[in-house]
């Protein structure tokens, strides 16, 4: 399915980063800060530590089954029947999270940018662009991601300028929040980092599957760094109270820029980076879902089902939540448990354990 497509390690790292990051910078800081208050950055650091273990789990699976996608090795480990069931669950999760992401973007666009436009337009257009990327192949998606990373320089600069407004004292006193809240806050960034498991659906594209450990470690560390910077930035600019009350604090952070009285009103630069990042993130989840579905039906080429899957994703994203309040509630209270326990650790851990037991039995 993916036999001809090959990407190098750097592209893989960037891909994993953009697989996790775009939506995270949208809503993660506010959610984390509302739970862990002034110490939300500690949550981000802790989450990075745990996230590294997630990455290791995924990479050890990938390394044990070189050249096989998640679906193929789950079938190999659990057998045909249970493998298919796990695969179907995983496909559901991919499609569900993909429509969740699409919806998140739609909500952002219709709240913060163009309130008069119906949200469906954003959902459909985003899905079309991502579908085009998916249809063009994995290499193209990876290259588009790389091109985006080249453009990232501008966004990083804008982001850096917004840090001129910081006051370090807003971070003090440290450890003011109860430890339980800090730990609870850890779950939010963790549920994003756990998305690294999606990469196992593409593992055959790697040039050398030995390097997957380095790739996941590197990407989780960089993602953690971004989370840390994002959260710390919001905390140091708005303080915990205002920061957690905002819907998209990073967006407000950029809106606050006013340098030399003419470098201001830069919010649309960050908006563009989010939109493009969103296309990529949607594209990656979409791609994984498409690969899963074509595996399920045993297709040799995934392209014919790109549009059907896209229609499911868009339809689901329209139906999934009544409004942004429901979505926020879901993302804050349900999503972390739902996706961490079942899909991001549960299933990979199960696969890993079974494969270890099988190996032991073989060697014994």
């Amino acid at each position, binding site marked *: 399915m993916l036999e001809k497509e090959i990407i190098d390690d750097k592209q893989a790292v960037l891909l994993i980063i953009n697989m996790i990051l775009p939506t995270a910078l949208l809503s993660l800081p506010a959610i984390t800060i509302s739970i862990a208050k002034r110490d939300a950055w500690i949550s981000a650091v802790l989450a990075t530590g745990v996230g590294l273990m997630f990455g290791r789990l995924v990479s050890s699976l990938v390394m044990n089954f070189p050249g096989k996608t998640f679906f193929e090795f789950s079938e190999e480990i659990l057998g045909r029947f249970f493998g298919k069931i796990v695969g179907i669950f995983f496909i559901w999760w991919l499609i569900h999270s993909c429509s969740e992401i699409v919806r998140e973007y739609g909500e952002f666009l219709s709240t913060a940018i163009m*309130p008069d436009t119906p949200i469906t337009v954003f959902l459909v257009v985003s899905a079309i662009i991502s579908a085009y990327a998916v249809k063009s192949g994995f290499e193209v998606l990876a290259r588009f991601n790389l091109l985006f990373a080249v453009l990232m320089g501008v966004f990083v600069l804008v982001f850096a300028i917004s840090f001129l407004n910081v006051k370090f004292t807003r971070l003090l*006193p440290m450890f003011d929040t109860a430890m339980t809240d800090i730990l609870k806050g850890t779950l939010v960034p963790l549920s994003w980092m756990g998305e690294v498991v999606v990469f196992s659906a593409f593992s055959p594209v790697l040039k050398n599957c030995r390097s997957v450990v380095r790739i996941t470690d590197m990407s989780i560390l960089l993602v953690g760094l971004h989370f840390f910077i994002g959260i710390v930035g919001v905390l140091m600019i708005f303080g915990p109270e*205002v920061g957690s009350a905002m819907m998209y604090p990073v967006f407000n952070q950029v809106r606050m820029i006013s340098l030399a009285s003419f470098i201001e009103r830069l919010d649309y630069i960050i908006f563009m980076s989010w939109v493009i990042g969103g296309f990529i993130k949607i594209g990656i989840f979409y791609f994984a879902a498409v690969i899963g579905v074509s595996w399920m039906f045993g297709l040799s080429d995934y392209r014919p089902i790109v549009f059907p899957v896209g229609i499911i994703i868009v339809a689901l994203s329209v139906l999934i939540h009544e409004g942004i309040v429901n979505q926020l509630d879901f993302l804050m209270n349900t999503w972390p448990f739902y996706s961490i326990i079942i899909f991001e650790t549960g299933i990979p851990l199960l696969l890993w354990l079974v494969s270890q037991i099988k190996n032991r039995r073989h060697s014994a």
Partner: protein
Amino acid sequence: MKKKIAPIIWMIIIATILSGCWSRKELNEVAIVLGTGIDLNKEGHIRLTVQVAVPTAFATGEEGKGGQKEAASMEVSADGATIEEAERHLAMKIPREIYWGHCVALIIGENMAKKGVRMITDFFERDREPRETMWVMVAKGTAEDFLKTSSILEKTSSQAVGLLTRMKTGYSVKLMDFTEMLAEDGIQPAVTGVRVINENHVTGESQHSGAENKRRVEISGTALFREDRLVGWLEADETRGLLWLKGEPVEGVITVPTPEEPNKMVSIKIKRGSTKIYAGHINDAPYFTVKIRVEGDMIEQQGRENLATPERMNALEEKMAYEIRKRVELALYRARNIYGVDVFGFGQVYHRRFKSEWRNIKDSWDDIFRQAKVDIQVEAHIREIGLLTRRPGTEK
């Protein structure tokens, strides 16, 4: 592999054209709000005043020159229970859609401020158009009256106060800072005060016609809040003290008497300064040390003394330090002892240092703060003295 771009392009074009363009607002279909004023009307409702730009007055070239001078802005008011309701009522008077994205200043009338501002700021934070960076100020009198006043050089009063605040002559507060001060514990809000003055009295000019129209806007002191209610004012001098205590970069001049000729003055321009506040305990009561460090240049001297000696410089620096300390103490006294509010954020400093003790006392902080001892230490330095060492024809 099929990678035809044409069908994709068509799909996007059709999707977008069919979907239309809901959010489109042409520039000649919007009323650009430059300043917003909020007052309390007699029925206790919100009275919203917007200063709307008249675009043709901003045209350059021929149109601008010919004919009589057009007013650059129009002020329209409407009442309502909420801001949004008042805006809807405004829409009945303004034939265009109200656009907040370029609103420079949010001016709160004195009565409104006394009633409480929390009920009005939410709109400006929640709506996507008004920017977080707009200046918040409290008008002595009504905001409506303030917005209707013309200004020097700038075409509209909002732009004028916007620029005045930007120059940091007063304690300038952006909407987002104001929100934070309202939300956080251990600090009470303070914002710039503005007022309308009658220039006729000041200059007594008569030859120009239309002298009755010489009403101008100016920045005047600082408004102090407890929670979201206006409780009192600091005068311009005291605002300086507030700025020192807040650690805001102070640009300005300090005038002190010459060491040996007390009726002649020396002006020192402040170049940089820093403020550090340390919290501590004396007998279990909060205690604060404020350390202020100032550097400045001597700009003007009235007397005949030769100040360019180390001893006299030191004496001058001490006078300068004394002057600053006096102002800081004055501001502290007014805010703390007369109005009883901690607008300086001493509570936050205390919280940072003693986080567990803070939990017990944060609800009664205003009372505790009133008792707390605050020790102010000022260290002043004069760096440059200009192009003269001493005045020609004076003692060497």
